């Protein structure tokens, strides 16, 4: 079997700024900073510290896994920009990880079997990012693919027993987890990343989910 190459991962789609390294199937390190507007300042120092702690050099890293969205446009761009800068210096492959799928994977590992759950994050005043999954033996199954929907549509898509995650909270005491940890980004890339190994890093963009519309004055 091929020797395992470390996976360095980045998660910046929301308020959580997270970087992790997967050193083997059983060994991980992660640094998190949960705060608004610190990602640009903290992400690179976090990655530098992380690699130091893990005794790993960037050139030993096999792939860079980056949370690709949806989420905060600026946050996603910071993560992907850092990934591109790291990648181009050492010719490392970037794997774009669908943010909600990675979060679904993380949640399914702890949810009771056969739980339907929704991830819904605020996108703007009128819309939310929405996806629906089902936990199945610690793994996730996709029910509704990540999409952008009008807030008013939410009630139609929400069934009685669905658990709700994400920051689109209708009730205060709902679970609030709105983005995965970087470890989940690395794990997702480890499990599903093989399909992406021939991607051109330069063509990668955040999953904005929608063209930006300019409102003329």
């Amino acid at each position, binding site marked *: 079997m091929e020797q395992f190459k470390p996976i360095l991962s980045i998660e910046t789609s929301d308020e959580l700024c997270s970087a992790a390294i997967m050193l083997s199937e059983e060994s991980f390190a992660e640094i998190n900073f949960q705060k608004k507007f610190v990602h640009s300042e903290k992400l*690179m120092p976090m990655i530098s510290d992380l690699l130091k702690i893990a005794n790993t050099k960037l050139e030993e890293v096999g792939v860079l896994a980056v949370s690709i969205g949806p989420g905060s446009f600026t946050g996603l761009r910071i993560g992907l920009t850092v990934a*591109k800068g790291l990648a181009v*210096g050492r010719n490392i492959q970037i794997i774009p990880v669908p943010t909600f799928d990675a979060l679904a994977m993380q949640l399914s590992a702890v949810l009771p079997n056969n739980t339907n759950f929704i991830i819904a994050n605020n996108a703007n005043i009128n819309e939310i990012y929405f996806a629906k999954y089902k936990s199945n033996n610690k793994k996730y199954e996709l029910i509704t693919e990540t999409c952008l929907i009008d807030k008013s549509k939410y009630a139609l898509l929400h069934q009685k027993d669905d658990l709700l995650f994400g920051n689109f909270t209708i009730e205060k005491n709902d679970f609030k987890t709105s983005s995965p940890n970087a470890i989940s980004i690395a794990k997702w890339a480890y499990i599903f990343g093989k399909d992406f190994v021939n991607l051109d890093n330069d063509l990668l*963009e955040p999953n904005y989910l929608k063209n*930006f519309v300019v409102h003329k004055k």
Partner: protein
Amino acid sequence: MTILGLESSCDETSVSIIRDGEILSNLISSQHFHLKYGGVVPELSSRAHLQMISPLFKKALEEANIEKEEIDLVSATAGPGLIGALLVGLNFGKALSYSLNKPFIAVNHIEGHIFSCFLMEEKPEYPILSLVVSGGHTLLLLVKDDLNIVKLGSTIDDAAGEAFDKVAKMIGLGYPGGPKVQEYSEKGNPKAIKFPVANLKGEYDFSFSGLKTSVLRYIQKEYPILEKITEDEKSNIAASFQDAVVKALSNNVKKAILNYEIKTLSVVGGVAANKAIRNKLIQLAKKFNKKIVIPDIEFCGDNAAMIAYRAGKLFENNIISDLNAVAFPALPKNAFIAN
């Protein structure tokens, strides 16, 4: 020493490689798509920077004919500018420097403009009287050496470039207006209309908002039906406006030449591309027997060569940045104030 410069403060993505003061490559990708919105749309600008930055970096290496490992220093603009746009160049630069294991320097965009005159063959000598005229700034500075820059004056309202753009819009010349106003000016009579030159409390300060308003008043008064302005009349308005700007700028420059010991006169920034302004300052330098160094047009607008050059100067002075360097949208209040 081989220095990489990255610039993404507004609507230009630029990557440059300079070696020992010589420009090996200076690629500029302009985001022309903003034209149809009549101004830069920040979110679209940020998206375009992210698309361009990595391919442009590779192209810059190719054009400079070097390997990335030959880069000794990585630099990027940290501000002032559009935050989302700045974050792209800055974070790409920080990550790349880490990945190449080379030092990183975050550069002030305005300092980049100021030192762009050093990219010319003829080298400026300190002290330099530097007129910075760009889309967002109008400053008159005394540059004593690499690190000591003192502000003599600045605009109290609009920047010079902003005034050019707004006047261009008033007479329907489109965006960006600077080059269009210049083009029309060349066919017009600068004495046709008398627009006011502001007299301000701060000896070296500028104001262009009053000038802008008087151009607007003039147009409203003379051409209630805007479509009736002929091309000739547009040319006269453009030429008279431009003449007032040249006067406002050169009045202060002249005062400063008389009151300060300077060796070199320089004008930098996007508006320094303006022929009338260049000519007037060349004339002033001649009259007062000062050296004049104005960047070629290519280096007046935003470019990464000036960022790389400025980074080199900072490095020589043992100034480098950390990986936690942050972007900033505006010039700090205490920028260029002597302590």
